């Protein structure tokens, strides 16, 4: 009888513990973990939003097919903020209150990230890997916020230094988008040149959305630049290269990871042949892919009916880091336990060719490095390892 009572008590304690835990931790129930994602599916960076979301969905589907994380299914709750901070704040409130998201992953666009991060952190939820170059995404240190995108300033400093040293350039110039992105790149380029005893020879900006860069290119040519760093996105990268070639100027150009995209050579064709770029994650080309990558590309195609790009890999990798950290945290999943686990895990390089990501208790930025690539024969080819 005593044994029976003890068993009943143990059972009750276990059940109470489960329900207490489920009630205590937002977004974590006995059967499900909800992860919030504020995307841009209809705004100026929508071309990134869809593949990032699809990459994450694919990884969560795989985890669910394998039995979930400690028996809990993963659900990605997606909201479209369209790069509008007002919609972002409301989406964050919805995900916190209605969907009870356990964590927010890969929020897209600096204004949206900056507007939603306080809402997320005040609610005690994890703020993971937002798409923003802003330092506030990892500094000052906060127990629940983590970033793994290499800052433009850091990797462009290393890339500029490497290019100038290897190529012997003397007149490095900059064409930059007139926003926080362009300014971050400018700081990196200036620091890299300063370390080599050089200064930025000429700089010229453009407003986001500009399609005609002829005056900017003419100005850089008049300055006789021998290396032009491009703080541009895909369309402007193609426009700058095409304009330079059109006027017969065969200058070397180096674009940031924002221009490192298959669309750059698809749109630019011969005009962008020879363009240098920085890669923080390689593009998944089917041709020449290793067997694991080829299998992944095939599964992505089958699931979404489209070829994956570097943003799909990004989404998949972020979701993979979430799954692996949640698994390593164990059954008692709380934001604090997840964060402490993330601080001690190391994500080594994988079949995508990604960098290794590592966080610590003092440093919540997982990666600072990029590698150089060049467009050769109509596709990006990696030409260095990750630059230190």
């Amino acid at each position: 009888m005593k044994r029976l009572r003890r068993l009943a008590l143990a059972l009750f304690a276990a059940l109470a513990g489960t329900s207490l835990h489920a009630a205590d931790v937002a977004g974590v129930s006995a059967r499900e973990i909800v992860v919030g994602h504020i995307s841009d599916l209809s705004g100026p960076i929508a071309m990134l939003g869809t593949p990032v979301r699809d990459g994450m969905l694919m990884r969560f589907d795989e985890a669910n097919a394998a039995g979930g994380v400690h028996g809990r299914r993963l659900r990605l709750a997606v909201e479209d903020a369209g790069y509008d901070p007002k919609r972002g704040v409301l989406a964050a409130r919805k995900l916190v209150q209605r969907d009870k998201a356990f964590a927010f992953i890969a929020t897209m666009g600096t204004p949206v990230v900056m507007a939603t991060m306080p809402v997320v952190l005040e609610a005690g939820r994890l703020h993971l890997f937002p798409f923003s170059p802003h330092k506030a995404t990892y500094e000052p240190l906060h127990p629940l916020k983590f970033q793994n995108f290499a800052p433009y300033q850091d990797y462009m400093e290393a890339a500029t230094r490497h290019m100038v040293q290897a190529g012997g350039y003397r007149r490095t110039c900059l064409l930059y988008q007139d926003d926080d992105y362009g300014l971050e790149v400018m700081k990196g380029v200036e620091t890299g040149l300063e370390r080599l005893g050089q200064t930025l020879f000429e700089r010229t900006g453009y407003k986001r959305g500009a399609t005609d860069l002829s005056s900017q290119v003419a100005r850089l040519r008049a300055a006789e630049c021998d290396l032009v760093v491009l703080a541009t996105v895909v369309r402007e990268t193609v426009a700058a290269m095409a304009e330079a070639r059109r006027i017969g100027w065969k200058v070397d150009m180096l674009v940031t990871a924002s221009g490192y995209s298959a669309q750059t050579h698809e749109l630019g064709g011969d005009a962008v042949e020879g363009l240098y770029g920085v890669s923080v994650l390689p593009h998944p080309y089917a041709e020449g892919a290793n067997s694991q990558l080829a299998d992944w590309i095939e599964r992505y195609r089958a699931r979404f009916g489209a070829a994956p790009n570097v943003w799909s890999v990004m989404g998949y990798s972020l979701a993979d880091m979430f799954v692996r950290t949640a698994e390593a945290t164990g059954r008692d999943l709380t934001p604090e336990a997840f964060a402490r686990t993330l601080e001690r895990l190391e994500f080594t390089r994988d079949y995508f060719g990604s960098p290794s990501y590592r966080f610590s208790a003092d440093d919540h930025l997982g990666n600072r490095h990029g590698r150089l690539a060049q467009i050769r024969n109509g596709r990006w080819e990696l030409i260095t390892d990750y630059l230190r």
Partner: protein
Amino acid sequence: MSATPVAAPEGLRVLRAAFVWGLLLALAVGWLGADFAFSQATLVATYAIAGLGVVIIVGQAGQIVLGQGALVALGAYAQTLLVQAGVAPLLALPLAATVGALGGVLASLPAGRLGGLYFGMSTLAFALIVEEALVRWESLTHGAAGLMVPGFGLAGWQADTPLAQAAVSIVVLLIALALAARLLRSRLGRAWRAVREDEAAADACGIAPGAAKLRAFIVGGSLSALGGSLYAHWIGFISPEQFGLVFSFELLMLAFIGGARRLSGAVWGALVVVAIPQAIAVLRDTLPGDWARSAGLELVLFGAIIVAVVLLRPQGLASGPRSG
């Protein structure tokens, strides 16, 4: 002999409006949950204040304004810089509104020479100049990198919950509505309407159209800047790109959907622009299958609602149904 409709007394209309909006808020709290609903109320009220500026300039004075976002930006930046400099947020609000009024004066200068769409284009140019200045004046505005905005507080109290933020926004909106309503009943309000209907006739009656337009821009600019001041606090981060042309067109759409001829049009318009996309997102979650999560569905539904509003209430939601 035809019956003339008798307008309800002022007090009764105010009570009726308070009841309708109170009921809407209560329903939203019950349906969406308190924090989510109060956040929506905060932004609806804030956008309504900014939209009131458009209603005054477009709906009352009859001037086309395509760059109202710039006046909101002036308010947002003025408020942020003043608060960062140590001015109490409540005291900074009227100062930021004054900056918006000065911006309104500048934006209205071409009205002496240009009219109609040409003047509208000049306000568009004004918006571009303001945006460019905010980017270039880095020592003050931090340029494209943006500014972090301190929270709204008063004597040690911080409006850091959705309920507190909604309360502040609604109180400021009510004050703005009351002041605007008083202006519309005044000689100035009648002058605006006279200029709107026929500028030459107004001139012939002794109304100076230039002065009336200038005052519309002063009032409209200060109201939009007031909305911008609160917007800066609630969003917590401002950058020039947030106040671009899309924002200006959103405010214009707000005024026309709500009804530019009535002050309450700004509130109805803000409700549609801010809250309807969120309501669609919540309803979308109840739909089965993956297709409901496809990109752009909310935009399509939002567009359909706008078309329906324009067809059924061409004068805006605040006016009566289509009378033929």
